[in-house]
C-alpha cells in the first residue's frame, strides 16, 4: 500500500483537493497564507477582497463576514457554506475553504476577473446575443444546482460572475437553500427579482430561480429590473398582485418569448432549467468566449475619464418614460434582504447596506498587504493610475449596494403579503427598522415626506445610499410610506378632535365615493405601473382627507367643473357614456385592446358596490345621454343624494 503523499491518485481524480489549488491549510494562522490585494466591494453580508494565495500565487476572492455583527446563528452561515462546498460545477464559483480570524469569518472563493454582470452593465445594457449566452450558462448552472437539490434563491446580475475568458458562474450562495421534499417557506431574495410565490410565502421550489432568471434577463437587456423605479418594499406588494413583467422594446420575438416563459406567474406552469435549455433563444447562443466583448467594453468604459454626469445617468426627468428607461441607471439599493424574523434583525441587514467607504477593518492581520484605492472607491469612478494592471476588478459603486432580505419566520397567515393588507407589510417594514432611514432621507430631500416615494425619481434614488448613512438622525413619527392609502389608512391614529358635521360629509366624499372607485379600479391582472399609479392617487386622497377634508372635497368639485368646462372632456364623456367606477373598469380592459375607443354599451356590473344610489345614478346617466348634459352635474347630484341619505341633517 502506498503510504506516500496524502493525496492518493484516486482522490486527485476528484475535482476537489487537486494539488495546486489555493485551499487554506488548517493552521493556527490561516490568514497568513493569503495576501489581501484590494477591496472588491461590499457584498450582501460582508466585504470582499481580491487576495493572493501565497503558496501558489493564485488569485482568490476572500469574503469577510463579521460574525460579531451578525445576529444570525453561526450554524446557519455554516449551512450555507456547506451547500457551497457540495457543489462541483463549471457554472458555480468554486469554494476553497473558510476560517475564522478574531471575529471575522474568511471565506476563500474562486476569483473571477471579468466581474459581475451588474458591473458590466455599467457600460450599458447587453445585446441580445450576449444575453443569450449568459442565459444558457445560467441555465446550466441552475440545472446543476436543482439536480443537486439546491435552490439559489438570489439570481440577479450582481450574482452572475464572468471569468476573464467569458465563462459564466453563479455566485453568492448567501441564501441558497437545500431543497427537501417539502416546499420552502423562507422569505428570501432581493425584491425586484423575487418570484411571486416566494413573496406570497405560499411555498416554493426550484422554479423560483427560473422567475429570477427571467427578471435578470430583462435586467441585462434594459440595465435594470422591472419596477426598479419603485421602492423595494413596494415591489413586494406589486409583484404578486400585478401581471408578470414583459420584455418591451426592440428585441426579437424569441427573446421575448424566453423571458415570458421564465416569468410565468404560476410556478407549476413555469418551465424548468432543463426545459428552457431547449428553447430556441438558448439553442442559437454563441460560445462563451464571445462574452469577452462585454469585459472589453467595460474596460474601455472604465478607461475613459469619468464624465461629470455619467453617460447613462441623464439628468432629472420630468416624466417617467418607461420605454426609454434602459438608459437610466438606477441608484437603488437592490438589496437582498436577510433577517431572522419579521420583527427581527432587519436592522443588521440595513447596516450591511451602508457602504463601507472609510471602513478599514484590517486590524486583524498586521502583516497583510493591503492596497485599497480609496479614491476610486469614493468616487465610484476611475481606477487609480497605478492599478491599470487590473482594470477588470469588480467594483461596487458605493451607491449600489446589493444585499439580501431574509425573513425566516413562516407566518401564521401564509398570504400575509398578498392579502393586500399592506398595512401589515408597512408595520413589518417599520419594525424592521427601514422606516426611519427611509423617511429621514425623504424628509431631507424634500422637506416634507412625499405622498409616495416612488413618484419622484432621480433625486431620491441617488440619495438612497446616502440616506442610510444618516440612520438615527431623527425619530420619525409617521408610518413607513409604502402602502396604499387604503391599507395604511387603517394604521392612522384615530383623529382626536371631534370633527364638525360638514367635515364628516367631506370625509364621506372621500371614504364612500373616491376610495371605493379607486379600489375598484385596481385589479389583479393589471400592469404593476397601473396598480401603482392608482395606489398613489388613493394615497393622495387619503392623506388629503386627513389633512384637509374640505380641500379634498373642493378638488373633486373642481375636477367635475373642469370636465364640464372642457369641450374635449365633455365630448369624450358623452361618447364614453360612463364615468362610474364599474364602467371605468370595463373601459380599461377595452382600452388595452382598442386604444381610446370606448364602447357605448351600458354594461351592468353585477358586483356593483354602489347600492342605493347606484340605480338612481343609472337613470340619471341615461338622462345624460339623452340630454347631452354635462355628467359632472349629475355626479354631483348623486353625491349630494348619497350624502343626504347618510347624513340627512347636514345638507337639508
Amino acid at each position, binding site marked *: *500500500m*502506498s503510504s506516500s503523499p496524502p493525496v*492518493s*491518485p*484516486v*482522490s486527485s*481524480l*476528484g*475535482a*476537489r*483537493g487537486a494539488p495546486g489549488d489555493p485551499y*487554506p491549510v*488548517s493552521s493556527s494562522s*490561516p490568514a497568513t497564507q493569503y495576501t489581501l490585494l484590494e477591496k472588491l466591494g461590499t457584498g450582501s453580508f460582508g466585504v470582499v477582497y481580491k487576495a493572493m494565495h501565497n503558496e501558489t500565487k493564485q488569485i482568490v476572492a476572500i469574503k469577510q463576514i463579521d*460574525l*460579531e455583527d451578525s445576529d444570525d446563528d*453561526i*450554524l446557519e452561515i*455554516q449551512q450555507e*457554506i*456547506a451547500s457551497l*462546498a*457540495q457543489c*462541483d460545477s463549471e457554472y458555480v464559483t468554486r469554494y476553497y*475553504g*473558510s*476560517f*475564522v480570524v*478574531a*471575529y471575522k*469569518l474568511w471565506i476563500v472563493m474562486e476569483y473571477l476577473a471579468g466581474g459581475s454582470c451588474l458591473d458590466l452593465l455599467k457600460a450599458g445594457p447587453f445585446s441580445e446575443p450576449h444575453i443569450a449566452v449568459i442565459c444558457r450558462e445560467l441555465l446550466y448552472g441552475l440545472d446543476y444546482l436543482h439536480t443537486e437539490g439546491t435552490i439559489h434563491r438570489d439570481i440577479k446580475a450582481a450574482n452572475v460572475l464572468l471569468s476573464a475568458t467569458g465563462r459564466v458562474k453563479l455566485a453568492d450562495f448567501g441564501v441558497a437553500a437545500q431543497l427537501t421534499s417539502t416546499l420552502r417557506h423562507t422569505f428570501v431574495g432581493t425584491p425586484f427579482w423575487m418570484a411571486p410565490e416566494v413573496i406570497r410565502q405560499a411555498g416554493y421550489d426550484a422554479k423560483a430561480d427560473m422567475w429570477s432568471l427571467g427578471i435578470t434577463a430583462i435586467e441585462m437587456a434594459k440595465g435594470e429590473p422591472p419596477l426598479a423605479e419603485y421602492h423595494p418594499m413596494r415591489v413586494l406588494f406589486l409583484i404578486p398582485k400585478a401581471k408578470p413583467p414583459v420584455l418591451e422594446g426592440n428585441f426579437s420575438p424569441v427573446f421575448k418569448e424566453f423571458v415570458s416563459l421564465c416569468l410565468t406567474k404560476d410556478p407549476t406552469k413555469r418551465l424548468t432549467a432543463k426545459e428552457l435549455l431547449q428553447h430556441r433563444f438558448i439553442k442559437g447562443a454563441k460560445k462563451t468566449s464571445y462574452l469577452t466583448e462585454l469585459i472589453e467594453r467595460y474596460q474601455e468604459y472604465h478607461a475613459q475619464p469619468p464624465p461629470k454626469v455619467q453617460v447613462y445617468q441623464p439628468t432629472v426627468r420630468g416624466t417617467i418614460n418607461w420605454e426609454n428607461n434602459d438608459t437610466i441607471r438606477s441608484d437603488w439599493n437592490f438589496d437582498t434582504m436577510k433577517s431572522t424574523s419579521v420583527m427581527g434583525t432587519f436592522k443588521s441587514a440595513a447596516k450591511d447596506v451602508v457602504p463601507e467607504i472609510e471602513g478599514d477593518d484590517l486590524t486583524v492581520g498586521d502583516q497583510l498587504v493591503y492596497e485599497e484605492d480609496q479614491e476610486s472607491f469614493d468616487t465610484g469612478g476611475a481606477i487609480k493610475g497605478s492599478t491599470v494592471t487590473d482594470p477588470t476588478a469588480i467594483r461596487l459603486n458605493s451607491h449600489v449596494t446589493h444585499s439580501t432580505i431574509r425573513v425566516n419566520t413562516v407566518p401564521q397567515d401564509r398570504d400575509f403579503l398578498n392579502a393586500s393588507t399592506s398595512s401589515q407589510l408597512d408595520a413589518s417594514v417599520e419594525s424592521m427598522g427601514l422606516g426611519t432611514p427611509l423617511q429621514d432621507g425623504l424628509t431631507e430631500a424634500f422637506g416634507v415626506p412625499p405622498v409616495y416615494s416612488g413618484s419622484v425619481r432621480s433625486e431620491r434614488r441617488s440619495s438612497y445610499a446616502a440616506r442610510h448613512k444618516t440612520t438615527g438622525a431623527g425619530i420619525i413619527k409617521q408610518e413607513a410610506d409604502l402602502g396604499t392609502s387604503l391599507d395604511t389608512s387603517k394604521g392612522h391614529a384615530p383623529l382626536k378632535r371631534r370633527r364638525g358635521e360638514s367635515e364628516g360629509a367631506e370625509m364621506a366624499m372621500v371614504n364612500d365615493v373616491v376610495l371605493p372607485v379607486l379600489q375598484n379600479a385596481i385589479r389583479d391582472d393589471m400592469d404593476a405601473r397601473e396598480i401603482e399609479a392608482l395606489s398613489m392617487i388613493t394615497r393622495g386622497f387619503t392623506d388629503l382627507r386627513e389633512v384637509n377634508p374640505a380641500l379634498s372635497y373642493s378638488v373633486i368639485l373642481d375636477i367635475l367643473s373642469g370636465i364640464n368646462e372642457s369641450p374635449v372632456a365633455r365630448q369624450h364623456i358623452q361618447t364614453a357614456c360612463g364615468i362610474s367606477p364599474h364602467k371605468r373598469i370595463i373601459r380599461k380592459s377595452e382600452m388595452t385592446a382598442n386604444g381610446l375607443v370606448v364602447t357605448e354599451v351600458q354594461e351592468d356590473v353585477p358586483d356593483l358596490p354602489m347600492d342605493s344610489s347606484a340605480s338612481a345614478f343609472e337613470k340619471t346617466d341615461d338622462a345624460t345621454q339623452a340630454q347631452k348634459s354635462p355628467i359632472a352635474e349629475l355626479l354631483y347630484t348623486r353625491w349630494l343624494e348619497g350624502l343626504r341619505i347618510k347624513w340627512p341633517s347636514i345638507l337639508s
Partner: protein
Amino acid sequence: MNFFKTKPRAPPDLVRGLRDVIPKLDAGPSGAESRRKIWFCYQASEEVSRNLQGIKGILYGDGEPIPELIAQLAQETYSTDLLLILLQNMHKFDFESRKDVVQIFNNLLRRQIGNRLPTVEYICARREDVIFSALAGYGNEEIALNTGMILREMLKHEQLAKILLYSDQFYMFPHYIETTSFGVSCDSFANLKDTLTRHKSMVAEYLDKNYDRFFNSYTTLILSNNYVTKRQSLKLLGEILLDRANFNVMTRYIAQDANLKMMMNMLRDKSKNIQFEAFHVFKVFVANPKKPPQIEAILRRNKEKLLVFLKNFHNDKEDEQFSDEKQFLIVQVQNL
C-alpha cells in the same frame, strides 16, 4: 461512458462488486510502474462510482422504487457490512461518489418496515462501529462534511444517539471542534448539539449520571480561545440548562461557585455576543430562589458592581424579553 445504465445489475452484484473493488483503490499490482498504477486506480475508482450509481438507482429509482429489490439490497449491505466499509474508505472515493455514499446511507437509515427501522436495528445490534467511524470522519477534512451528514441522520434515532453519548468516543467532539477548520468545526458542533438536545430525557439521565465528566469536558469548549467555539458552546449551555428535562443538572450547575465566576467573567468578555450568551446562563444563578450560600455570597459581595453593570448592560437591545429579564435580575440583586 454510456455503458452505465444499459443493464441494471442485481443488488448482490452491485454490493459485492463494490466491496471487492474498494481495496483496489489503494494500489495497483505491486511493483507495477506508477503510470500503470494510476490507471488501475482510475479504473477502480470508475467502478466504485458505477456501483454506487447502481445502488442509488435502486434506492431512489427513476420511477417507483421496487420494494423487493430494495429489501434485497439492504439485506446484502448488512451481510457484507458495506456501510462500515463505505465509511472507512470514503476518503478514497471521488467527489461525486462521496455524495452518493451519503445519499445511499441516509436512504437506508430512513428505511422503515412498519414500525421497524432495519438499518438502525442492524447498527445497534451488530455494528456500533458505523457510528464511531462516522464520527471519526471529522479527522479528515476532505470527507468530514459528508460523514457529518451521515452522523446527523444517525443521531435522529435515539438508540444510535444513545450509543454515541455513552461511548468514550463522544468525548472526541471537543477535540474535533477545536482542531478543525471553521466549516468542519461547525459541523461537528452541530452534531454535538444534536446529540445533546434531540432526545431530551435520555440525555438528561446521562448528564445526571455523568455530570462531572461531561462538564469537565464541556467547560474546555466554553473556555476555548476560538471565538466561534466559545460563542456557540455558551449558547448551547444556556439551552441545556434551561431545558425542563435537565432540571437536576441545572440545579447542580448553578450551585457551583466556579461556574458562577466563569459566567461573571464572560459577562465582561470583549465580544458582545459572548456577553449576551453568558447573560442567559448568569440569569439562572441569580433567579434561583434557593441560592446556595457560596453563590449568594459571591453575588452579595458584588452587589453594587453588578447593579451598575446590569443597568448599563446592552441597553441598545430592542428585545423586550431580554429587558424584562434584566430588570428582574436587577431587582433580585437589589434584594440581596
